[in-house]
């Protein structure tokens, strides 16, 4: 049921001064569908406060409301904030020392440049993007099978962000890399965007599953690229936004020819040709053996084929029973989807061979293995998509979204509210086997006339920095979404992005070097706190910086970092860390990597399984990757406190951190100071030092009465009495449990 206007989470105007842009009068094009009208940054009184043009937009609103910004916090806080936001990590003690000691007026900008150049930047921002596109390395549903090549898409995103690949090209590659840059392996991997959807590979009704996947891809495109809830128009015209049901299926028609390519070869043409030649040689040499194997297995395969296929929907049965060359486009798609379980079953046909036959089979397999020296080494492959062929399957408007009730045929037309001319769609010159539909869609989405794409992405950046976007609903710029708090700033940033040739790093830099971003986060430090709290209790006009909670991935990364064991190896096959005993028995659990260093890589490299998100991530609000997540909920729960207090992971991190601290010698004040520096990146205040020292001495006394096991002592074990050493573990563990570790100010 759609929300009625003016209820729910709609922005409540707190005063007429701080009103957000109101939707235009009835009949006008809604703001999001109108092209941005970038105006120059407005004049402000306090020009001294302004660091980048961003600040003029923010300050103008503050001044209009007679409010002041909050003064900048100390350098430690600022460094922690910008390091977290750009890399997801904590500053190292060396980085802190360098920044604190740098007298240059550009010291902060130097830090920003260093962080933007760091490989850790792409890793951090890729996590946000991967969540948005519901990236996972398993297919979901009951089987939740692994997708062995999915990680290449993750690496593609990280590299794109690190290399500052222009955002328009980044989108075009993901939507139509196969059509636009067929010779570029990165562009092939990029189409993984269209392939990361969940999929029930052992389903029964593939006509429905094909439709579910198309819906999912259409909806995700709408959310991620356009920031529109197009899915509302799947069953009926959108209740609020000017998107008709026909628009929805017209949009879907751009994706309808998609065909899964899970074995897209990622080699330069010459190498691929060499591989194919070698493969053919092996095939020729082994033909007799393989034919014998085939004769042996064929009856069983055929029986199994019938068993599986009979259970499927009629269309898919027909598709699978039609010889490949005679299949229509839809039949090829259905056969691809439904055929997976057929292959999975028939691959096990040998199990039905009895005594003699089985022996014969084993002998033939051994014989086949003798030719292995001829076999080419496996080539790198990606999960990608292409079109099914130049003749696309038809798309219809589905009454009530029901795949069984096709109505009007779809046409290749962009949603009518944009008022854009219909695209000229033809197969790309060097890809005659494709339709060119997705290339046309990609060109439109990133074209100069598109009012949304640029605004949507700059708003996403803003959202991650300020905990709330200029539009607070980052994937809903429609009528039911929130109105922008700073519409002029949104348009100006979107225009800047285009002016900077779609360089996201340029926009990142504009934001993080602004005085707006550098504000303090403690409301009471604001000189106009009383008036501000009254006029704008929810900080819509940004009179102070938001406080953010670390997500689970960052909690883990920083814990490993503080413990000195974070492995920064980038890219490649995913890491499989240990799982807590409670989930290690799950059918979805993985076997941890044998090499402990491999287990301690950054969380963005942790194997992502839809049905088993590690409890620490889950506790800290990791979303389901079954649908696009534009903004995480941020909750504060007992579950998180328990994880930090009692999990093996947290204790282990504390033990290792204590081990590092105790490598240097020192009395209790020195230990407390070292712990504060290591965990919080700063020195303790005098009362904090006193508290810490008192805790150490009392805890040592308590522990002196206990028999302590190695499992709760520092790692490595220091040359200290066990009780003293254990107390240091507890001190560090407590620091890592406390708010200062978990929050970014």
């Amino acid at each position, binding site marked *: 049921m759609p929300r009625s206007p003016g209820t729910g*989470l709609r922005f409540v105007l707190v005063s007429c001064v701080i009103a957000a842009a109101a939707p235009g009068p009835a009949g006008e094009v809604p703001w999001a569908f109108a092209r941005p009208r970038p105006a120059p940054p407005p004049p402000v009184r306090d020009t001294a406060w302004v660091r980048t043009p961003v600040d003029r937009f923010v300050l103008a609103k503050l001044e209009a409301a007679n409010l002041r910004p909050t003064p900048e916090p100390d350098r430690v806080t600022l460094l922690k904030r910008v390091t977290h936001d750009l890399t997801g990590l904590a500053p190292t003690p060396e980085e802190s020392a360098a920044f604190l000691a740098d007298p240059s007026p550009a010291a902060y900008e130097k830090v920003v440049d260093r962080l933007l150049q760091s490989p850790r930047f792409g890793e951090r921002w890729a996590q946000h993007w991967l969540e948005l596109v519901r990236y996972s390395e398993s297919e979901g549903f009951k089987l939740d099978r692994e997708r062995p090549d999915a990680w290449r898409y993750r690496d593609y995103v990280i590299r794109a962000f690190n290399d500052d690949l222009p955002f328009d090209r980044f989108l075009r590659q993901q939507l139509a890399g196969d059509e636009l840059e067929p010779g570029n392996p990165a562009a092939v991997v990029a189409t993984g965007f269209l392939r990361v959807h969940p999929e029930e590979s052992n389903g029964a009704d593939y006509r429905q599953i094909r439709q579910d996947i198309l819906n999912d891809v259409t909806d995700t495109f709408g959310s991620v690229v356009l920031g529109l809830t197009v899915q509302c128009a799947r069953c009926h015209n959108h209740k609020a936004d000017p998107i008709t049901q026909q628009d929805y299926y017209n949009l879907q028609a751009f994706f309808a020819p998609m065909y899964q390519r899970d074995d897209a070869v990622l080699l330069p043409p010459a190498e691929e040709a060499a591989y194919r030649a070698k493969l053919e040689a092996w095939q020729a040499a082994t033909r007799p053996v393989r034919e014998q194997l085939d004769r042996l297995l064929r009856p069983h395969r055929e029986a199994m084929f019938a068993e599986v296929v009979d259970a499927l929907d009629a269309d898919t049965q027909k598709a699978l029973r039609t010889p490949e060359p005679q299949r229509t486009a839809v039949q090829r798609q259905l056969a691809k989807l439904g055929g997976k379980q057929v292959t999975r079953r028939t691959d096990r046909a040998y199990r039905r061979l009895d005594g003699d036959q089985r022996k014969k089979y084993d002998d033939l397999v051994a014989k086949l293995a003798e030719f292995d020296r001829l076999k080419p080494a496996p080539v790198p492959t990606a999960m990608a998509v292409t079109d099914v062929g130049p003749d696309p399957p038809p798309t219809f408007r589905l009454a009530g979204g029901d795949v069984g009730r096709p109505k009007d045929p779809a046409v290749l037309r962009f949603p009518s509210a944009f008022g854009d001319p219909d695209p000229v769609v033809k197969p790309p010159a060097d890809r005659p086997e494709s339709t060119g539909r997705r290339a046309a869609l990609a060109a439109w989405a990133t074209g100069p006339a598109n009012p949304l794409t640029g605004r949507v992405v700059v708003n996403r950046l803003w959202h991650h920095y*300020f905990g709330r976007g200029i539009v607070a609903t980052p994937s809903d710029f429609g009528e039911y979404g929130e109105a922008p708090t700073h519409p002029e700033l949104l348009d100006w940033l979107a225009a800047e992005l285009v002016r900077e040739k779609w360089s996201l790093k340029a926009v990142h830099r504009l934001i993080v070097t602004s005085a707006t971003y550098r504000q303090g986060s403690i409301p009471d430090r604001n000189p106009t706190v009383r008036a501000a709290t009254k006029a704008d209790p929810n900080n819509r006009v940004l009179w102070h910086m938001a406080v953010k909670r670390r997500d689970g991935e960052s909690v883990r990364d920083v814990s490993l970092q503080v413990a000195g064991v974070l492995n920064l190896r980038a890219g490649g096959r995913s890491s499989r860390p240990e799982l807590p005993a409670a989930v290690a028995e799950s059918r979805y659990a993985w076997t941890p990597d044998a090499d402990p260093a491999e287990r301690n890589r950054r969380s963005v490299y942790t194997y992502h399984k839809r049905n088993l998100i590690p409890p620490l991530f889950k506790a800290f609000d990791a979303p389901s990757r079954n649908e696009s997540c534009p903004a995480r909920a941020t909750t*504060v729960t007992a*579950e998180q406190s328990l994880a930090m207090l009692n*999990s093996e992971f947290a204790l282990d991190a504390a033990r290792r951190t204590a081990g590092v601290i105790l490598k240097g010698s020192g009395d209790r004040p020195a230990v407390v100071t070292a712990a504060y520096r290591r965990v919080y990146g700063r020195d303790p205040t005098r009362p904090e030092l006193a508290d810490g020292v008192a805790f150490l001495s009392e805890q040592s006394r308590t522990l002196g009465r206990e028999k302590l*096991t190695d499992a709760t002592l520092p790692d490595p074990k220091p040359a200290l009495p066990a009780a003293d050493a254990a107390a240091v573990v507890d001190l560090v563990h407590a620091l890592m449990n406390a708010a200062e570790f978990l929050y970014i*100010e």
Partner: protein
Amino acid sequence: MQNEIAQTERANMISHSDIRVPHSAMPRSRREFLASAGAGFGAVAFAALNAPASDRDDPLAPKPPHHTPRAKAVIWCFLDGGPSHLDLFDPKPALAKLDGKPLPASFKKPVTAMGVTANNALLASRRSFEQHGRSGLWVSDWYPEIAKRADDLCVVRSCTADGLTHVAAVLQMTTCHQLPGRPAVGAWAVYGLGSACDNLPGFVVLTDTTTDPPGGNNVWGNGFLPNPYRGSRFAPGPVPILNATPPAGVSDPRQRAKFGYVQTLNRRYAADRPGCRQAEAQIASGELAFRMQASAPEVVDFSKETAETKALYGLDTPATEANARNCLLARRLVERGVRFVQIYMGAGSKWDAHADLEGNHGKLCAASDRPIAALLTDLKRRGLLDSTLVVWGGEFGRTPMSESGNGRDHNPTGFTTWLAGGGAKPGTAYGSTDEIGLYAAENPVPVRDLHATILHLMGLDHEKLTFPHNGRDEIVTGVGGSVVAGLVG
């Protein structure tokens, strides 16, 4: 949409005098501390970093229902895999006559999970049925103990669902939708009503095996609702909640002192940042966590239950032990204010009797009969059945056609679920299937109506229980659904 929500404390504080914290002038209570820190108590509980103004403070605070509730809590026994209605609650004399014969042409051929089964011969029930109690409800000899509670049951014989496969069907029965990613009905209930309990989760999931039901934790997920509404799956053994016990080798005094120091750090952090709601929330969630270390082991500690009670549930018999433990635990959870308990029996599609129905169901019925009957008996004698809705059912029933000669395929087009207590109409059979039990005939009850009715009994109107997500005010059913008046007593 951004939700910034914190768990808060609602009831007893830990007495700070119990925790030794060095060198700190400790306020005597958190309330006092907050007063001294300049924040009103109402401001405490939540961390709305950037929450829109209309967001609620505390996600688990009790909320007023839409109407007077009949059930304060729900215990849902989920027979995972699809129990056969034809062999338990829905006797079909006509099917006995058609045993071994093909499906009569007068019946529409169904789409079945295993395809070929639509053409298989019909299989009569090998069970004997009798009428029980004053209500005269039919129950087969597989469920002799539950049969004794017949007058408490409201047997819905006309349930229908849409999913043919286990994942889709279990997801639909638990979240009302076949695709993963929607909130479970238990999550909706806790979202709507809050929790009546401050040291245990509001929605608890119990399983008899370590295997997940199909769909894994999606079937008790919070979907787009905030995290605190997610079902918490209790682990078997003395520590049911993950991380609710100190790590091995950490003594109680050591843990207490360490936690005291954590809170000292948090209080100093909060005091330095007046008005910072996150810091307050952190203190509150820490205290709740510390309390859970005591309450979680307590609720699974049956040492204070009498021998008679344990025997009643069948805790002393290996065959019934796992379900007995979970049923007794469910009662204890509900007594402590937990709102929604889902017990998976035969977790991992164990009821999925494509072959050897007799062997499969015989064993699983024996394992679940006594514990479920005992749960009804025990709730009733404690005066809790009136306010606790017990639900029995699977994701679908089974076909009258045979599979593998002696099994039955999935049947979502007509099957049985029963309700008891919590305002459900006792001693009733509602709706019917056709004469062979293939399709629902009279008064079909689709899953969305079942969910709407369960929420109705809990005092919630499923159309008013909304959550804004992606431009819609989402409701549990997505679209439609209505309360089945005939199930309400």
